[in-house]
């Protein structure tokens, strides 16, 4: 069906040839930063960087980096949190989808996932820390009646040396992303009918899903899974908040070298950035090998006729774990709110003794808010224009996207941010645009463009082309068809894409910190700065603002009464 739709093209009208500039322009906008940035770390990694006196190629930076204390531990923690979080998230997301796919709960999940995704990583991590820290809300609720603690215990419940808190928080955050990706994939593989056929042949819900839907769905979510893996082992903001400290995760360690006042550390920082990239590539390669091995060994299971997969256990386990994640997420958000309005809260009281808004007065919000919202809006509008241009071009000039172009689209999400943003910063210095809004926007675009494309592409491509053809036979010009037929029909999807783009922009930490060079500060860089200051109320306020901004935009976009949906009765 989708094939058929794609083959039928809208007749070529006048003036659509100009659309052909959009794909190369868009590719340039989001691939250039990645490639230029990677280029910017390769040379210094081998000792060549004349501005800092590196005139000859050598392996000295590699030896220097390897000699740094704690590197091995940092790399191990990064790899275990990355792999561990991805494996747990994937298994749980698949179990939930398999066991609950035709229930009312799943339908509700489908509707409410998107705003949850808009919660920025940093804000969630701070809420999580407020909840789980030794002096956090959880300890207060359980003390002293259960634990006997009269003051915060000396345990590392966050920032533990093995990165467990980071791993759990990553699972809580990424599960919603993967669930959304699975839901999108289900629509593309005719899942409901295939499951009905398998159930009719006597298969339990979980077995039917695993044997019939999983192999088809996994092909569609492979790239998102790799993105989760690469993100998990290279994340910076969440790792600073929840990860181990001495040594930190490898990505944080590399960032610290880049930001150190001693310029000599830049060479080993470049080595670290390159090594992080290699780790991401290696991790994805290992994961792919695992996929192939599993597919090979499990092939026979598909047709062995076994019709039950511990359905009840999978259902209750996955339901309980997802419920727990919802609880943690909700409690983390609540903790953020409560702490930002707290004045006095002595341990181990369950709730604050005194509420106050006084802390809000000490926070300078106007400038970072203006920057965050301004950058977010400009970048989102540019991304929408570029992506719409690309999709219109697809429609009019008959270029179908290939699997390979999809990999390109995911590139900014697969390459560790530290690896290319640090190299890009060097380039911005050379071009003398570092510390400007332009530099920040260029970096944000690299992340916003892919997401906007992913959200908009499917609705655009599956829109019935007969509407446009009918309009054309009624004498409408291509521009009028776009404006009066396609745009209104797609407005819901465009609003959703705009909300996603804005949320992605607001959440960017490294992509603001590095190109901003300390002169451009957003709500997100201020959140991370507030952490150093240590006042929980201030941290809570910034975290709350960082979260409120994208979530509000999301609610507005989703609730916008753009076009009343017509109710249809199933036949």
């Amino acid at each position, binding site marked *: 069906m989708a094939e058929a739709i794609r083959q039928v093209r809208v007749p070529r009208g006048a003036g659509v040839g100009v659309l052909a500039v959009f794909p190369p322009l868009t590719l340039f906008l989001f691939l250039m930063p990645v490639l230029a940035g990677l280029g910017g770390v390769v040379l210094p990694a081998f000792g060549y960087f004349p501005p800092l006196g590196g005139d000859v190629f050598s392996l000295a930076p590699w030896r220097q980096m390897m000699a740094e204390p704690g590197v091995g531990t940092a790399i191990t923690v990064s790899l275990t949190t990355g792999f561990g979080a991805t494996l747990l998230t994937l298994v749980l997301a698949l179990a939930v989808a398999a066991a609950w796919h035709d229930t009312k709960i799943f339908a509700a999940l489908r509707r409410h996932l998107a705003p949850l995704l808009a919660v920025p990583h940093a804000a969630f991590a701070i809420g999580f820390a407020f909840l789980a820290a030794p002096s956090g809300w959880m300890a207060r609720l359980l003390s002293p009646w259960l634990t006997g603690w009269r003051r915060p215990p000396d345990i590392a419940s966050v920032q533990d040396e093995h990165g467990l808190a980071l791993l759990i928080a990553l699972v809580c955050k990424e599960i919603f992303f993967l669930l959304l990706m699975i839901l999108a994939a289900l629509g593309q593989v005719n899942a409901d009918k295939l499951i009905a056929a398998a159930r009719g042949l006597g*298969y339990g819900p979980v077995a039917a899903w695993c044997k019939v839907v999983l192999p088809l769905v996994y092909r569609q979510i492979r790239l998102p899974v790799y993105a989760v893996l690469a993100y998990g082992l290279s994340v910076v903001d969440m790792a600073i908040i929840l990860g181990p400290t001495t040594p930190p995760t490898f990505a944080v360690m590399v960032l610290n070298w880049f930001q150190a006042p001693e310029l000599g550390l830049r060479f080993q920082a470049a080595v670290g950035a390159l090594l992080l990239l290699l780790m991401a590539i290696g991790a994805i390669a290992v994961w792919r090998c695992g996929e192939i091995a599993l597919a090979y060994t499990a092939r026979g299971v598909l047709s062995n006729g076994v*019709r039950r997969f511990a359905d009840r256990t999978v259902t209750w386990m996955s339901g309980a774990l997802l419920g727990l994640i919802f609880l943690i997420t909700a409690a983390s958000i609540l903790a953020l709110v409560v702490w930002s309005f707290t004045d006095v809260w002595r341990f181990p009281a369950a709730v604050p003794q005194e509420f106050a808004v006084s802390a809000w007065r000490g926070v300078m919000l106007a400038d970072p808010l203006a920057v965050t919202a301004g950058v977010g809006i400009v970048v989102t509008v540019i991304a929408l224009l570029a992506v719409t241009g690309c999709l219109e071009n697809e429609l009019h000039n008959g270029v179908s996207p290939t699997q390979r172009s999809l990999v390109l689209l995911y590139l900014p999400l697969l390459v560790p941010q530290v690896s290319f943003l640090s190299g890009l910063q060097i380039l911005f210095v050379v071009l003398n645009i570092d510390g400007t809004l332009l530099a920040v926007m260029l970096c944000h675009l690299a992340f916003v463009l892919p997401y906007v494309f992913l959200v908009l592409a499917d609705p655009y491509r599956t829109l019935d082309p007969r509407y446009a053809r009918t309009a054309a036979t009624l004498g409408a010009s291509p521009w009028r068809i776009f404006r009066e037929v396609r745009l209104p029909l797609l407005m819901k999807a465009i609003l959703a894409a705009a909300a996603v783009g804005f949320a992605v922009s607001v959440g960017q930490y490294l992509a603001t910190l590095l190109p901003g060079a300390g002169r451009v500060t957003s709500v997100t860089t201020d959140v991370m700065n507030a952490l150093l200051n240590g006042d929980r109320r201030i941290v809570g306020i910034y975290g709350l603002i960082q979260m409120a901004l994208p979530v509000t935009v999301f609610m507005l976009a989703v609730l916008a009464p753009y076009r009343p949906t017509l109710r249809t009765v199933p036949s």
Partner: protein
Amino acid sequence: MSLMLKDVKLAVEGRPLLKSLSVDVPPGDVVTLMGPSGCGKSSLLAYICGTLDPAFTASGEVTLNGRGLKDLPVETRRVGILFQDDLLFPHMSVGENLGFGLPSAVKGTARHARIAAALREADLEGFADRDPATLSGGQRSRVSLMRVLLSAPEALLLDEPFARLDVTLRQQIRAFVFSHARASGLPVLLVTHDEADAVAAGGPVISL
């Protein structure tokens, strides 16, 4: 021993769709339910299978070989169904699709033998390793029927299974399906809006 429907009613959002239907389908018989689209005939089959959309409300008894089906989950009802689409699983070979239908209690060489026999019956000898996507519409329909029969159902429901086939192929597949259905000794319930289907089925016809 048969499939029995007693006073089955269907409604969607309070609007009655099917007034009251009682049918007794003896083993080896094909009963045809005729009606225009939207009269609730596919929903009736969904009700018998246990896959009715929650937007519908339904009441009435359905018994299969003496077992009441009402509160059983889909997979334990032992009701096989063929839809308009053959719904062969695209990631499995033809042989694997058939194996998917066969109960797991059949093991080893017996398993291979059963699949080979089913392929022979469908006139598809040597097709076990083929990708279903390379099969013609008629071949796919035959595999789909064999897959259902291998799953050892106690009744067979046919939900306009010939509607997607072209006219010449339709006669051929009809003959194939009805002869196998009769030979299997299962009670068969067919819903269709095509008069020719009802004639070919040769059993009693109920107009909805």
